């Protein structure tokens, strides 16, 4: 028994770290209705500023704590509320998720640019000395870090329970989560209540970040990101509602980790796989077994009917004449681009555009699942990785041509996506996002980590594996291959979108209740769109690996799944055109940023650009680029076609046959 306790007790402080973040997630969700994906980034921000002020500016720990936790952390929460989440309609789950994700990837990138090096060392402790063993339990030494974690968790939990259950503000917060607009009808300043909730939530994030920092010798964002997964798992078992259940599950997870560490053979695959995948298993367990998670985020604001409908897409508004002009312009651009790539394009830009083609195929999978299917998948990079790794393994072990292996890889990615779809068949919105991110992390930690080498060597894509002169540095074969693959994928996606399946998906996205009520099999649509999206991602992943001449797990990590989503959402998630522009925009900006000096180079500015671009998703769910295209299209149209007698047939009439709906403003029905 003492043996067991010796393994279990050291897990409690670890568990408390999960619990503390989980408690923050639950509070945010309870008070604002937002599952805040950016919570880990908020915690990291405060920890970073705190450590930076102490280590680099030599401020006293207390002063640094006040600045980082009491001032900055709630301030960030207030900024989130005022400028981001307040603008999102309560029922728009995808917009909330995208906004949180964009901040999750954006905040560390901002820090990297401001402070050049975003890693800090030896974060100080604010409560107890990490080097002192205060007491022993069952022979286990309890040092300052452990005591700090436990004390911080207990104090935070008690304070929050008091706030939510026994204060007037807590009661108002519980009302605001249902509908901020509804409590305003009762004379309560809903905006102030929600802002208070964000400030408190930010404060806890900052507190958690600073408390946890001493656990890590080197302060880096990836630790906080990993922590988020465990916190998601604990919060999911609490159905984002019960603070005490979140704490209990968090602590149990921490204890399970150290127990497994103690009993499983050190260094074995079981040990590494069990430890890294535990939070994901717990998260998936909650999503599958806890009924409340299936409907999470599905609650509708009683005042949702006052929200205006989303504006129609450009294609629905354009006059046919202008459509023709645009189509011809695209063909001309395509021809000029192809001729340039095959003749005079400098090598460096040829590689950039080739990468753009490969990314476009991967991004097309997001168009399918999010734009057409209305579902947010956070594992598209993973599915691309499944295709690439399958092709690489078949090439290395069976000598199969990489291109043929890529097709098998696409089938494998589709199968993985289908399995994931069946596992998440009852989940929508929040639950689905969590399930897909859990899948991405499982693949990162368990699958890709184990298969990213062949005989201890990284998997390189060599000319003899691909053939057809595709990897010939002086040839143009890859460009031709990538163009053909992209064209075929776009062609098929357009066929699906314009056909019955596209209409069924549109119906499902518009109203799943009505869609099933007219005979659309939602389960089949869910599985089908996942399978198609997986296949396209798998093909894209193979293409990307050929372009990079290596199958690298870092290319397909879960972080990139998030980045890919914000990139596509920024440009336009509803059309294949948006995916292609996202693909090219991503690589061209990446290349352009190599020309800027010092700290602005690298990926940080690129990620910031797209992360903050994704924030426009709320106002322009069709993508900011798509919105600008629509605006300029209609301006030109008005200029060029103003002498037409009849109004554009594509311009729909206003409410009940009223004046035509303007593209720049939503049509308000009712």
């Amino acid at each position, binding site marked *: 028994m003492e043996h067991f306790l010796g393994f279990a007790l050291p897990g409690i402080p670890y568990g408390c770290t999960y619990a503390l973040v989980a408690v923050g997630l639950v509070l945010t969700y309870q008070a604002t209705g937002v599952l805040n994906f950016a919570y880990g980034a908020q915690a990291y921000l405060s920890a970073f500023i705190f450590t930076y002020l102490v280590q680099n500016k030599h401020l006293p720990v207390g002063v640094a704590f006040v600045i980082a936790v009491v001032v900055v952390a709630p301030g960030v929460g207030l900024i989130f509320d005022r400028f981001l989440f307040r603008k999102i309609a309560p029922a728009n789950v995808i917009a909330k998720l995208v906004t949180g994700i964009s901040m999750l990837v954006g905040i560390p990138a901002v820090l990297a640019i401001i402070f050049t090096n975003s890693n800090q060392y030896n974060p100080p402790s604010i409560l107890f000395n990490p080097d002192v063993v205060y007491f022993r339990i069952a022979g286990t030494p309890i040092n300052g870090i452990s005591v700090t974690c436990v004390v911080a968790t207990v104090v935070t939990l008690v304070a929050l329970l008091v706030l939510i259950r026994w204060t007037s503000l807590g009661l108002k917060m519980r009302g605001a989560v249902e509908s901020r607009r509804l409590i305003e009808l009762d004379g309560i300043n809903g905006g102030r209540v929600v802002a208070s909730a964000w400030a408190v939530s930010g404060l806890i994030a900052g507190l958690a970040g600073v408390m946890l920092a001493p656990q890590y010798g080197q302060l880096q964002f990836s630790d906080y990101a990993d922590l988020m997964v465990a916190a998601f798992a604990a919060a999911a078992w609490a159905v984002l509602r019960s603070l005490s259940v979140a704490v209990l599950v968090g602590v149990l997870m921490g204890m399970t980790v150290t127990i497994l560490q103690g009993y499983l053979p050190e260094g074995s695959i079981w040990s590494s796989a069990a430890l890294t995948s535990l939070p994901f298993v717990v998260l998936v367990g909650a999503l599958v077994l806890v009924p409340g998670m299936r409907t999470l985020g599905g609650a509708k604001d009683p005042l949702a*009917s006052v929200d205006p409908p989303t504006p129609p897409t450009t294609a629905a508004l354009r006059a046919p004449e202008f459509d023709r002009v645009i189509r011809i312009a695209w063909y001309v651009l395509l021809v000029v681009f192809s001729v340039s790539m095959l003749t005079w394009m400098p090598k460096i830009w040829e590689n950039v555009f080739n990468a753009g083609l490969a990314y476009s195929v991967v991004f097309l999978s997001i168009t399918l699942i999010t734009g057409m299917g209305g579902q947010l998948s956070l594992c598209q990079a993973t599915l691309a990785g499944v295709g690439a790794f399958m092709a690489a393994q078949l090439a290395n072990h069976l000598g199969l041509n990489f291109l043929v292996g890529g097709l098998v890889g696409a089938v494998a990615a589709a199968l993985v996506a289908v399995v994931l779809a069946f596992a998440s068949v009852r989940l929508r919105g929040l639950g689905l996002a969590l399930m897909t991110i859990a899948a991405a992390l499982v693949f990162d930690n368990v699958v890709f980590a184990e298969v990213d080498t062949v005989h201890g060597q990284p998997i390189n894509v060599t000319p003899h594996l691909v053939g057809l002169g595709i990897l010939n540095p002086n040839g143009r074969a890859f460009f031709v291959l990538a163009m053909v693959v992209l064209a075929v994928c776009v062609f098929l996606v357009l066929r699906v979108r314009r056909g019955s399946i596209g209409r069924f998906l549109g119906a499902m996205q518009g109203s799943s209740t*009505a869609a*099933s*009520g007219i005979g*659309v*099999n939602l389960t089949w649509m869910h599985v*089908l769109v996942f399978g198609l999206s997986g296949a396209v991602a798998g093909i894209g992943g193979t293409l990307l690996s050929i372009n990079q001449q290596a199958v690298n797990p870092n290319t397909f990590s879960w972080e990139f799944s998030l980045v890919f989503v914000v990139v596509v959402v920024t440009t336009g998630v509803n059309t294949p055109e948006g995916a292609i522009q996202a693909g090219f925009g991503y690589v061209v900006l990446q290349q352009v940023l190599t020309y800027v000096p010092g700290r602005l180079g690298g990926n940080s500015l690129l990620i910031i650009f797209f992360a903050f671009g994704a924030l426009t998703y709320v106002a322009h769910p069709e993508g900011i680029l798509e919105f600008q295209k629509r605006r300029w299209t209609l301006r030109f149209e008005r200029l060029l076609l103003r002498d037409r007698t009849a109004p554009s047939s594509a311009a729909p009439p206003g409410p009940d046959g009223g004046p035509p709906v303007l593209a720049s403003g939503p049509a308000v029905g009712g």
Partner: protein
Amino acid sequence: MAAPSGDVLLRVDGVSKTFGGIAAVNGVSFEVSRGESVGLVGPNGAGKTTLFNCVCGQLRPEAGRIELEGRPLVDMPTFERARLGIGRTYQRVEVFPDMTVRDHLLVSYRARWRKGRLWRDLCNLSKPTAEETEKVDSVLGMVGLDDRAEAPVASLGLGSCRLVELARALVADPVVLMADEPSSGLDIHETQELGTVLRQVQRDRGMAMVLVEHDLSMVAEVVDRTVVMNLGEVIAEGAFATVMADPAVRTAYLGIQE
């Protein structure tokens, strides 16, 4: 309670549904014959929409049987019930905001008759056929939406959206139409027009209809028989005038003490 005549199309037998201990529907039984129009009325909270949800498959009852043409429905998913011929409109308008009016009807027609196939899409064989176009146009004309066929539904007002819902249900040739407060949010003129359309369509097509409605003049005009619910139970059934004269109905529904 049995339908007065004709062969039974829809049978609801002892259906119960509770929410957290509150019996929203408690042992409700009634039958609808082929071609019959039945009004389901009662005060707010009587369980009418919950019963609709149980029949259409959005909710699963805890007890009781539901049959359509003798086929048990309780274990059948919603989409399969729709494919059997249960059409539905909703209390709170449920339309597909990104679609045109025509697309609403087309998607409903194809879903009902299982005409959506991936391979057909990939082979570009999914363009509307002449038969589909004719069918859609005739239903649009029937409900008076033919001049707004190509309009995005997001640009329509509430009254038109209710007509879109009705047309979407009718284009699938339902054997029974479940209309849930179709006049909600409409003005007197629109309600009268809607009542006329419903009656005409129901008679012309010989389909059965169950109408939940608070506008009693519309109910009186449209239905053959009326079922009155209160607090999850059926309290009266019969001809409209007869049940409205029932003291229990006047007390429970109209608040009139005899």
